[in-house]
């Protein structure tokens, strides 16, 4: 039965390829757009994920996402240290600074200030220089993408200088950081130095990075910090999800990408569904012949589902493969492209394809089930 089904399917080469094309095209649209959407969403949390040492982020209770900067008392980290279950807590600055280049150009940047003595929160993947260089006067670390943005077509080099808030900054290290949502240069320096690079405010501390004591659950310790300090305390994952949910709820990104994904789904249904239906209708006489020769309806229904699942599987593999290749190629051409293909996107695409082929075959099955085998006697 399977063999008969596949033979019938592949016998009409043009329709067979048309159905696969429809599903493949649909898959590419769904997977590609979903992967780009995931990539952008991941970028909203890149600064959180890049801080590896801390289990808990402590912040102003009104903070809604990573870039929603609301200062807390400069002594807040001292209160956090006093909470049971906390191994250590350090200050962490996050803000924006204007970079003034030697030739007079300005460029907005993300400025991070790490604890002066421990340098906790500093980037891990150094390309040039070391984190320890931050202890030098006017020292800053800059991400590779930011460096290339400021000095395109120039080789990476330590010792370059620029100004922020009329203060001199000297690059003592270049690191590989995750791409950020705003695609600005990312600059790390010591906390005390960071406060010099921005206009003076009464409060300048934005986050307290906290490590749990051994054996303590981050969720429990975070709750304890909230209760005892009145500040918001979130684990890394919680903070990441809160940030992503904010962008999902408050920006047009999901709607824009969702529209394209939906379009892919509709196009897939239209092309694959209609072609598959036409394939069945044009083969009604063949199905009628099989019925006349004694093939039961149940077997014919299974044949149609096998045909649908076959083209669905091939279309899915081709579509996902091409979407991945396309995404990686575009990322290779322009590294700033966001493309992240988690298993959830693959599963979502598979479900969409399954729905398309099941819908197509269901419509076809209805035509075949009501077909009288006596149709074969009609001229």
């Amino acid at each position, binding site marked *: *039965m399977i*063999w*008969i089904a596949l*033979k*019938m399917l*592949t*016998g*009409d080469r043009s329709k067979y390829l048309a159905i696969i094309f429809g599903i493949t095209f649909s898959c590419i649209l769904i997977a590609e757009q979903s992967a780009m959407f995931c990539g952008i969403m991941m970028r909203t949390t890149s600064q959180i994920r890049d801080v590896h040492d801390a289990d808990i982020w402590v912040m102003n209770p009104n903070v809604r996402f990573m870039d929603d900067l609301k200062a807390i008392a400069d002594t807040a980290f001292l209160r956090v240290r006093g909470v049971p279950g906390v191994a250590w807590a350090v200050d962490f600055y996050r803000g924006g600074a204007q970079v003034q280049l030697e030739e007079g150009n300005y460029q907005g940047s993300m400025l991070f200030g790490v604890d002066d003595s421990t340098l906790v929160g500093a980037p891990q993947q150094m390309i040039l220089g070391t984190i320890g260089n931050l202890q030098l006067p006017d020292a800053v670390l800059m991400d590779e993408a930011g460096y290339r943005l400021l000095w395109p077509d120039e080789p990476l080099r330590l010792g370059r200088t620029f100004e922020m808030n009329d203060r001199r900054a000297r690059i003592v290290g270049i690191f590989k950081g995750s791409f950020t949502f705003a695609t600005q240069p990312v600059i790390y320096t010591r906390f005390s130095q960071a406060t010099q690079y921005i206009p003076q405010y009464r409060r300048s501390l934005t986050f307290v990075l906290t490590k749990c004591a051994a054996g303590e659950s981050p969720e429990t310790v975070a709750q304890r910090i909230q209760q005892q300090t009145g500040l918001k305390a979130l684990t890394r994952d919680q903070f990441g999800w809160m940030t992503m949910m904010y962008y999902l709820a408050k920006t047009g990104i999901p709607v824009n990408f969702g529209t394209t994904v939906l379009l892919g789904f509709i196009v897939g249904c239209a092309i694959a569904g209609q072609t598959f239906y036409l394939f069945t209708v044009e083969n009604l*006489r*063949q199905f009628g*012949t*099989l*019925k*006349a*020769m*004694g*093939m*039961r*309806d*149940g*077997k014919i229904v299974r044949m149609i589902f096998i045909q649908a699942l076959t083209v669905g599987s091939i279309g899915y593999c081709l579509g996902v493969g091409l979407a991945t290749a396309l995404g990686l190629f575009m990322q290779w051409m322009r590294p700033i492209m966001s493309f992240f293909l988690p298993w959830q996107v693959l599963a979502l695409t598979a479900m969409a394809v399954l729905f398309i082929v099941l819908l197509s075959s269901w419509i076809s099955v209805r035509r075949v089930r009501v077909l*009288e*085998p*006596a149709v*074969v*006697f*009609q*001229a």
Partner: protein
Amino acid sequence: MSTAIATTGVVCRDLVKDYGQGESRIRALRGITVDIHPGELTLLVGPSGCGKTTLISILAATLDATSGTVDVLGSRLNALTKDERSDFRARNVGFVFQQFNLLPAFTAAENVAVPLMIQGMPRDQAIARAEIELRTVGLEDRLHAFPAKLSGGQQQRVAIARALVHEPHLLVCDEPTSAIDAKTGHLVMTLIRQLARSPERVTVVVTHDARVFGFGDRMITLEDGRVARDERVQAPVSNPE
């Protein structure tokens, strides 16, 4: 279900078939009562629209009668469920169609193997058996040809091989010569007549081709849904060659 060949292979009593309902209802058969015997070639003839195709469809268990009874090879078709009728056809009925109805994506041997695979025979065995059947109809050199590469006569011989490969007790042929030339039609009818000689097989041929009449042993003429004449063929073709 008994598949043993009865003395009377097909027994129809007061067979009525209506198409449509209400005012648009058309009565295709108006009380057909007829017996058809094994071992002889029975021709169903008559003008277009007289009910030949409807009657053969009911006999082959591909269509339900509106009223009346049909017993084929000892089974009352009216009493069978849809799946039981499918199984009955798979085991007992061989079809030769006017337009051949070969599956275009299958080779001659694969086409002939299909009825065996429907009955559950493994593909390799079914194709081997089909190749033997194709040799008996003189197509040993066209086993792996696709229908599009075969002449009309060759396609009809493939269809005959397919109709016989599972050794059915009822062979129904619908206008088997209408889509082929006269010479090939003569060869095909000769073959069908030889097959009809089997005492284990009921053979019914629907035709309006007068050149075929001489091959039959018995000719039932339908007119307006009724049996108008039922007669023995006076001078059957004894040696078509």
